[in-house]
């Protein structure tokens, strides 16, 4: 393609006039765009990627002659979060104003008002910022083609956030449709740096036949954004570690050090891994520094949008000294005043560490700085290991989802609600995505039958008329009620039944899971949104509260959110421990816990990379076996179940399983000899999948995973506000639907998909198999210890924590903690704060 230089000259003069210089990577991106190329821009921190993608189409328009009226829709800007969308609109608009061109930028997300939608229906803005779900929704409009076929460019922002889940596949399918309407469509992704950046790009480009690529003369281009930003990564190391807990994840032991760190910076972001931890830390900081009331904020996904917006604005304006946040602040919005990021506990992954670090140091010449505040002793090792992996550039991959049939059925209905489709053409379109490249004919036929007949031809029901084949050979949805319901359930995110929390005056604070509220009685106190609240009553999915009185209060625990250790961090930990044993590391974090490591080594051993350490301990409870693969919680869950199941085939017994990110525990009443079992194939790869499925009540896990599959495939209808009553008759829980399928249609591919998702996502099966192989190849180092070792202790406690709900059990754990501290010669003064008992 011949490049028109007029547009570029315009950009260059704009930069010059403002006394700026374009980064070379920005120039590379817009030049490649003007050449007709597609590609992916990645960098660890965000600066400048947005502008790089935005200026290309503007230069193109200038090159075509520009003008004084805004062009109709040319750019679609897909962003993963609604919260980011409005911010993106602002930054795109800022550039447009600066350039003095008449382009308009609009917003289309689930939050967009019907008035704004109506305005957009009349005339679309030059660029539209949207989400994958809203794009899908636009494809379900009858006039989708008319509106969207003039698009020149689709920018997929924060692509790394979408890549690893079904929303990424939804984006791929959407892009395939847009490309069908306009084969010249260009796509640019913006992403954080990933271990599989080429794969990330290929997913955006889709599979084009080789000759088509050759004809277009362009393949995709990977552009690396600026990364001259210095990142400082360190760890808070308290003066004394005598009272530092061996386990738990609240980590308030570091409170004083964190307060000091916050005081030393102008503005600090304090990241926690889970929402309850954020609430606890916010409370902790306010108790330590009452004068900070109004100067520090709290931000997590369950808080009301207004509260979050207030906090975000406070950060941007530099009004807030510190904000305690969860991953809700991982993305988007630049908070320039933030000088430093504190990470409570471990970030668990290299990418997350860098992403969070990048939220600080936006001021010119300033470095990003992230400091870990470990919540228990072994997290010092983790903090050092994550840093080493980051410095070595070992960043995790995001594994994309392969052929999710539930999403395929959703997409087919979406298109059938919109323009409609012809079977063969649609099959090829779907196969044009990388996600469905290997879609088998049988799978395609099943999906088509599923949406047209409700199952295979033999089971056809005349009353089932979701998608109807017309005489013209096109598949369409004709029933208005079905179309409406489908449009309302487009998406892949399963939301828990959430209860709104409001004061009696009506002011909304946010929401929590229904199960938490269900456990509260009138008058109970709980902490939410940084406030102590007294529960009054629940009415219509709203919990009414009033300010509580100081005293005891519980903190809601939200499900999920805690990520297991990534493979890269696992590797790095094993490597670091090896170096430690060899005396070849010099990390301050390991020095800080030297005493504990020494204790571990003298009681048992610090496992070397090539060794498999197994500890056996006898306690009142029975016979414990500990192993340390360092493969993350989900792998250890699978492994412990697998081992217990294989052992119980030789010797009947009941096991209790414990697992953390570092290791696993098998506990049973009777002592058994492990060595013969190990020799007898305990770690064998043979029948691994079968044993795995048999050992974990796989049906139960699959049933849980089926929740998402059923929601995506449209089998369950997620309620929505103001829901008409007529829908009640067709509401059933996914568990019930699962049972119906499992009993009357056990071969349904959706059940198979749920099982595949359990293996891949929940148990990380391939990582588990690799871990098992490593254990098999390593010489076993069997140690009998008289007490659980420092490495074993957190695993042992984690098992209790799962069951810890009453005071009585809590007391029991407290006693354990005391006992062990005595054994190691360390006496805690106040053991009460050391464990997460909530």
């Amino acid at each position, binding site marked *: 393609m011949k490049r028109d230089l007029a547009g570029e000259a315009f950009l260059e003069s704009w930069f010059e006039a403002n006394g700026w210089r374009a980064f070379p990577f920005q120039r590379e991106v817009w030049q490649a765009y003007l050449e007709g190329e597609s590609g992916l821009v990645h960098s660890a921190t965000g600066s400048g990627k947005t502008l790089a993608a935005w200026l290309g189409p503007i230069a193109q328009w200038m090159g075509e002659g520009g003008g004084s009226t805004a062009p109709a829709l040319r750019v679609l800007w897909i962003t993963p979060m609604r919260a980011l969308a409005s911010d993106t609109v602002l930054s795109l608009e800022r550039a447009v104003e600066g350039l003095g061109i008449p382009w308009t930028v609009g917003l289309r997300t689930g939050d967009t008002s019907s008035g704004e939608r109506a305005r957009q229906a009349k005339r679309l803005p030059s660029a539209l910022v949207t989400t994958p779900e809203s794009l899908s929704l636009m494809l379900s409009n009858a006039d989708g083609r008319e509106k969207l076929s003039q698009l020149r460019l689709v920018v997929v922002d924060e692509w790394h956030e979408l890549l690893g889940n079904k929303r990424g596949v939804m984006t791929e399918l959407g892009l395939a449709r847009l490309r069908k309407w306009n084969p010249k469509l260009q796509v640019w992704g913006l992403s954080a740096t990933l271990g599989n950046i080429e794969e990330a790009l290929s997913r955006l480009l889709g599979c084009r036949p080789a000759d088509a690529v050759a004809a277009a003369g362009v393949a995709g281009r990977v552009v690396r954004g600026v990364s001259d930003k210095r990142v400082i990564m360190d760890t808070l190391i308290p003066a004394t570690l005598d009272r530092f807990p061996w386990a738990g994840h609240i980590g308030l032991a570091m409170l004083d050090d964190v307060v000091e760190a916050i005081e030393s910076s102008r503005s600090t972001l304090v990241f926690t891994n889970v929402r309850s931890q954020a609430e606890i830390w916010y409370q902790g900081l306010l108790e330590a520094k009452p004068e900070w009331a109004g100067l520090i904020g709290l931000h997590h996904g369950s808080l009301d949008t207004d509260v979050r917006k207030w906090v975000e604005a406070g950060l941007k304006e530099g009004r807030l000294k510190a904000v305690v946040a969860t991953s809700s602040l991982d993305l988007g919005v630049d908070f320039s005043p933030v000088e430093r990021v504190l990470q409570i506990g471990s970030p668990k992954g290299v990418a997350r560490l860098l992403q969070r670090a990048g939220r600080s140091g936006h001021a010119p010449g300033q470095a990003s700085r992230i400091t870990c505040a470990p919540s228990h002793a072994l997290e010092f090792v983790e903090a050092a290991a994550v840093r080493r992996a980051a410095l070595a550039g070992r960043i995790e991959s995001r594994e994309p989802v392969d052929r999710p049939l539930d999403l395929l059925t959703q997409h087919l209905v979406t298109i059938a609600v919109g323009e409609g489709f012809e079977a063969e053409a649609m099959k090829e379109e779907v196969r044009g995505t990388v996600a469905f490249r290997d879609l088998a004919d049988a799978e395609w036929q099943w999906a088509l039958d599923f949406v047209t007949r409700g199952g295979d031809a033999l089971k056809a*029901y005349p*009353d*089932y008329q979701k998608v109807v084949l017309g005489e013209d050979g096109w598949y369409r949805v004709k029933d208005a009620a079905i179309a409406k*319901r489908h449009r309302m359930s487009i998406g892949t995110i399963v939301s828990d039944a959430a209860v709104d929390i409001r004061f009696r005056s009506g002011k909304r604070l946010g929401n929590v899971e229904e199960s938490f509220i269900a456990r509260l009685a009138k008058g109970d106190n709980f902490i939410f949104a940084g406030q102590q609240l007294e529960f009054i009553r629940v009415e219509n999915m709203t919990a009414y509260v009033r300010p509580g009185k100081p005293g005891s209060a519980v903190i809601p625990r939200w499900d999920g959110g805690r990520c297991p250790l990534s493979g890269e961090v696992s590797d790095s930990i094993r490597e670091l421990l090896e170096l430690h044993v060899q005396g070849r590391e010099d990390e301050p974090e390991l020095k800080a816990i030297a005493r504990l490591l020494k204790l571990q080594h003298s009681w048992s051993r610090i496992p070397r990379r090539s060794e498999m350490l197994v500890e056996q301990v006898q306690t009142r409870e029975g016979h414990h076996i500990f192993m340390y693969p360092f493969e993350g919680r989900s792998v250890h869950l699978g492994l412990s179940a697998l081992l217990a199941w294989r052992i119980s085939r030789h010797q009947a017994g009941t096991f209790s399983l414990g697992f953390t990110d570092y290791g696993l525990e098998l506990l049973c009443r009777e002592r058994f000899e492990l060595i013969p079992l190990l020799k007898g194939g305990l770690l064998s790869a043979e029948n691994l999948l079968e044993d795995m499925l048999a050992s974990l009540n796989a049906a139960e896990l699959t049933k849980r995973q089926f929740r998402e599959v059923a929601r995506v495939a449209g089998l369950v209808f997620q309620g929505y506000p103001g829901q008409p009553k007529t829908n009640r*008759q067709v509401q*059933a829980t996914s568990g019930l639907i699962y049972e*119906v*399928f499992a009993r*009357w249609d056990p071969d349904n591919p959706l059940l198979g998909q749920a099982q595949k998702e359990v293996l891949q996502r929940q148990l990380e099966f391939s990582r588990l198999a690799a871990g098992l192989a490593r254990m098999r190849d390593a010489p076993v180092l069997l140690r009998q210890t008289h007490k659980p070792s420092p490495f074993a202790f957190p695993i042992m406690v984690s098992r209790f924590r799962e069951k810890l709900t009453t005071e009585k059990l809590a007391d029991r754990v407290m006693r354990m903690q005391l006992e062990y501290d005595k054994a190691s010669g360390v006496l805690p003064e106040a053991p009460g704060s050391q464990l997460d008992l909530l």
Partner: protein
Amino acid sequence: MTECTVAGETLVLLAEKAMYWPARGALFVADFHLGKAATFRRAGIALPPGTTSENVERLGRAIDRTGAREVIFLGDFLHSADGRAERTLRRFAAWREARKALGLTLVRGNHDLKAGDPPEAWNMRCIEAGERLGTFVLNHEPGEAKRGGYALAGHIHPAVRLSGEGETLRLPCFWFGARCGVLPAFGAFTGSAVVSPRSGDQVFVVAEDHVLKVA
């Protein structure tokens, strides 16, 4: 089959999720929800076939095992007007045809009010809640009978949660309080709700082929 005594009467609880009253030769069934899967299909939710057949076969089994002369549906026999699919109705009609002599009574429940009465040809006596049958009062929604007698009901699809040995189980149940007894939902495609029995109540869970007393 598990026997129990409620309001001085001997009742037999069946794992088929039905209850037999030998003194009257009556079988009680609550929340049959005929046509529920059809309702879903009509709305574009593809469910596999089989639930209706299972329902009528299980009902037949309960009748054959007890020798019941009469079946009393304690409400929500039909799921919805949309669920009156031809195939579903035909399935039940065939079953009815094969058991002509059987007396059928339906105490109209909230679903029946919207779904309408069953086809005339099925020869079912449809009554409003509150009718007295000896010791018992035939209801759909649980609660104390207004003019005395022991109420029998369904509606809430009762289940209880059992826990122990690190495991929890949720099972459908028969729940007999002081003034009212609630039957588990009979329909194969019905959910359940966990109830909180009071001390003194009798609770029997349905665990696959067994009915077991847990309280």
